[in-house]
């Protein structure tokens, strides 16, 4: 599903070059769930951005769903994202001028789908916001906003979902609720999940953990147990 090969990313700032990712390779298979962990500044977000085609790597190749991103221009990557990729962000990134419902509708509208409204409503009901359809993000709590963004992420039935610290801005309880929903929806749709997090509990819920350090992969191992998140509390 995702194939990263000898990818490096360097930035030049103030005349100095900074290698943020150094010759990284790994693959993620269909329906696999992977978390990327590591200390702050180790390059997690950078890696995620590259994988999702939001940025270009300095060297190496990235293949998403069998398509090499390097060969695509910005617009072609946008289409690719719209068709195969879902996003969840630490700070939700809802469009402030759109209602919850409209936020979920946008990716569907972009694909030119029909019955957009019904599908969006269904998704919002699934995340428990059936009664908040017409609220604006500013009228929702952080947790509710993140649930809207979850509904939006799954709206276009993505093949792969990227999440950067999806619970970073939430309290523990809400985090667990949201995380639970991510895994639920993920399982239902058979989506591949790439998750960046500092939360080791959350990381442990994925099937595989890649540990980054200073731009290198420090370790890449299968999680001891894959625990369904809804039962995590009882552990």
């Amino acid at each position, binding site marked *: 599903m995702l194939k990263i090969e000898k990818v490096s990313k360097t930035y030049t700032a103030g005349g100095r070059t900074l290698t943020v990712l150094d010759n990284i390779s790994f693959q993620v298979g269909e329906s696999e769930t992977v978390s990327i962990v590591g200390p702050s500044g180790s390059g997690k*977000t950078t890696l*995620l*951005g590259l994988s999702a085609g*939001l*940025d270009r790597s300095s060297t190496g190749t990235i293949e998403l769903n069998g398509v090499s991103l390097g060969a695509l221009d*910005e*617009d072609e990557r*946008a*289409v*690719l*994202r*719209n*068709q195969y*990729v879902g*996003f969840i*962000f630490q700070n939700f*990134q*809802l*469009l*402030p*001028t*759109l209602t919850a419902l*409209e936020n979920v509708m*946008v*990716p569907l*509208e*972009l*694909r*030119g789908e029909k019955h957009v409204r019904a599908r969006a409503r269904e998704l919002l009901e699934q995340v428990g916001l059936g009664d908040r359809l017409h609220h604006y993000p*500013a009228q929702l709590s952080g947790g509710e906003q993140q649930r809207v963004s979850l509904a*939006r992420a799954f709206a*276009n039935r993505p093949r792969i979902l990227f999440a*950067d610290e999806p619970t970073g801005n939430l309290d523990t309880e809400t985090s667990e609720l949201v995380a639970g929903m991510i895994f639920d929806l993920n399982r239902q749709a058979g989506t591949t999940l790439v998750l960046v997090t500092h939360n080791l509990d959350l990381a442990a819920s994925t099937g595989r953990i890649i540990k980054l350090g200073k731009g290198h992969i420090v370790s890449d191992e299968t999680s001891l147990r894959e625990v369904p998140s809804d039962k995590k509390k009882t552990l």
Partner: protein
Amino acid sequence: MKKISWYFLMAWRDSRRDQSRLLLFIAAIVLGIAALVSTLSFGRNLREDIDDQAKELLGADMVIYSNRPLSKADEMLLDSLPNRHSEECSFASMVYFVRNGQSRLVQVRAIEGDYPYYGELETTPAAADTDFREKQEALVDKTLLLQYGAKPGDSVRIGELSFAIAGSLDKAPGRNEISMTVAPPVYIPLRYMEPAGLLKKGSRVNYQYYYQYLQGDPEQFAQQIAPRLEAVGLHYETIAMRKNRMTNAFQHLTEFMTLISFIALLLGAVGVASSVNIYIREKVSDIAILRCLGLKARQAFLVYLVQVLVVGVLGSVLGAGLGLVLQQLLPGVFKDILPLETRFRVVWPAFFEGIAVGVIVSLLFALLPLLSVRKISPLLTLRVSLEPVRGRDPLRWLVYIVILGFIAFFSYLRMENGRKALVFTVSLLGAFLVLTGIARLFLFLIRRAFPERWPYLWRQGFANLFRPNNQTVILIVTIGLGTTFIGTLFFVQQFLIDQVTTSARGGEGNMVLFDIQPDQVKGIEGLAGQYHLPVKQEIPIVTMRIVEVRGQRGDSVLGQVANGGSHRRGQGFGERMDSNAVGRWVFEQELRVTYRDSLTGSEKLVAGQLGAPVSGPNDPISISLAEDFAKRWNIRVGDPVVFDVQGVRIATVVGSLRKVQWQRLELSFFVVFPRGVLERAPQFDVMITRVNTPEESARFQRAIVEKFPNVSVIDLQLVLSVLDEVLGKIGDVIRFMAGFCILTGLIVLITSVLISKYQRIRESVLLRTLGATRRQVRIILLLEYFFLGTLAAATGILLSLVFAEALARWSFEAPLMIHWVAVAEIFVAIMGLTMLIGLYNSRGVLNRPPLEVLRRED
């Protein structure tokens, strides 16, 4: 490909919370469009009004202009179709108001017959127009009556006769307020010219013959007889010609106004561009999210283009509507210049042209910031710190070129002249670059020179000009440009008045007596002596025509042109000449010539030698020409020139050229003869003297009018007051148009204050949280607008001084005197206005409770 409706839907959603702000952005172009629509419509109305009223403007089917009475042959020619006609002699003369003993130079129009045949002389009482023709009565200009406290029934003396005032003349065909101010008319019946002793007039008498043809086509007839009229040096004008002349004249005026409106619109558009830029910057994160969700660059661009398009259309429609209101004001602004009634009619093509231009201009300018939407990276969703827009965009250059192209295209549409349009576009670009350059330079210098040790409040107020997303430069440019217009107008006006005033300072003459018969010279000198007035200059004047230059004969030159058939009155100036041809104008004009053997203070010899006095009939007569005159009409030193001095031919040679400063209140002459030639020719004298007080002037004038009724007197006071009035009337128009630019600047100021309001509130709350009092915060704001106003006013005044100085040097060849008080007044006015508007619009900033602001943060 998305359905177009989706972009509208998305644009609607995206702008949901900002629609009132978007409308505010567009407010900057509303005035420009309003001005454009109103001037375009007014121009069109005016053209139609001229077409409708051309008959009334001329008052007859054909008018013959001449500086001598018609000959029998001419009359027979003109009478070859059945007609009615009127005759009018007009000349400058003194009128003496018997009731209060005051006198003034006026334009006497001695008339016979029923002119005007179309339209009427509007008088109070209405019957006065017919009454005065029957009796020994006069029609007097209404302002004159007011000024001299005279009323119908009083007497005025003109020449040696008294006339009862039949009524006041309120309006005459084809005359505007300005011409009435310069030469206030007094109508008398023609038959009294002789008994009043006015036939002895030395100065120019103009003859006008008004024909109304009762059968046949006057235009066709005019064409037929044109060659004959031309050949004898008569000018004529028909209704069609008058229509053309007026249309052309006012075309230029409305063209000028339209272009100024267009400039106001462009200024507004620059404001729009800068507002949209701020808007887009605030939308960067939203755009990044949309890009993340799969929106293509072009699609994101379209979502915002639609928003600008919609408000652009709304603003333009609003502006066009406002234009209709404004259009109703224009006749009032122009009433002193227009010789006719204008009626208000909606001109739909102008209305829609305004909307179209408004939409195109706002879109084009908004494109500049909008293009950057395409460059906003989806990566911004992950990293807020990133520079939102990367790299240079070659498309921007394309937009710049398209904008310039559109400006050139629009000005070409208006002026229908490619070269002019190009000059307009290039100068506009230049002016804009210079203004921005000056604005930036000022900011840079002040920033450099700003004393570190200034009190904190001052430094903070000044630093506010540089807050992120500031619109300081554009504000300086818009307000500055408006100031430039008004300042230039004001300084040039002041300059002209100064010229007249100073020309009579330091004991130089300030009163001119003319039309003095040679036998009156002694008497007037005596009278001046009685009143202890010095005779500064005494100048003899002989009228003559040029009949031959360098072997080219006047009658054949005039005949040729006439046969060409296309000759129109007043066309001579623009004509192309072959390199050897002498300008036709030379032969048409009656010249006033003096003789002397020295130069005056305002002359300088630039070629040859001044002619020696002529003592014998075989001596060569060496004349001296004014340099501009010689150059313009292609006459050179050494050329033989033959004059016709009232029937006598005199052969001369051009011996020298003089450079003449025309603006001095001195009599200047195109042609100066040596002594010993013209002493015996029929002539009249001009005398220049100096009076010290208005009372002295009035007493002396009364004495002159009583003893020498044919002599005319003009004093500096009169010239000044007329000049002042005329400049004031013309100035109204320019001030009105410049007002648009200033207002547009102020609207941009209002929008920019409102756009940055939230930012300002946060700053203010932060300052107050840190312990600043509301008073201190207010002072900081006040200082910010103080700096802004100062910079804008200084930029504008600086530029207007440069323009005024350039005009003074090049057109008038005299240095500009700067009136610092006036400069200070303009400065304070503009700065005060800026501070007032800035403060008024930020009044909400101080009243917000800090907590409310902090809560809105997310």
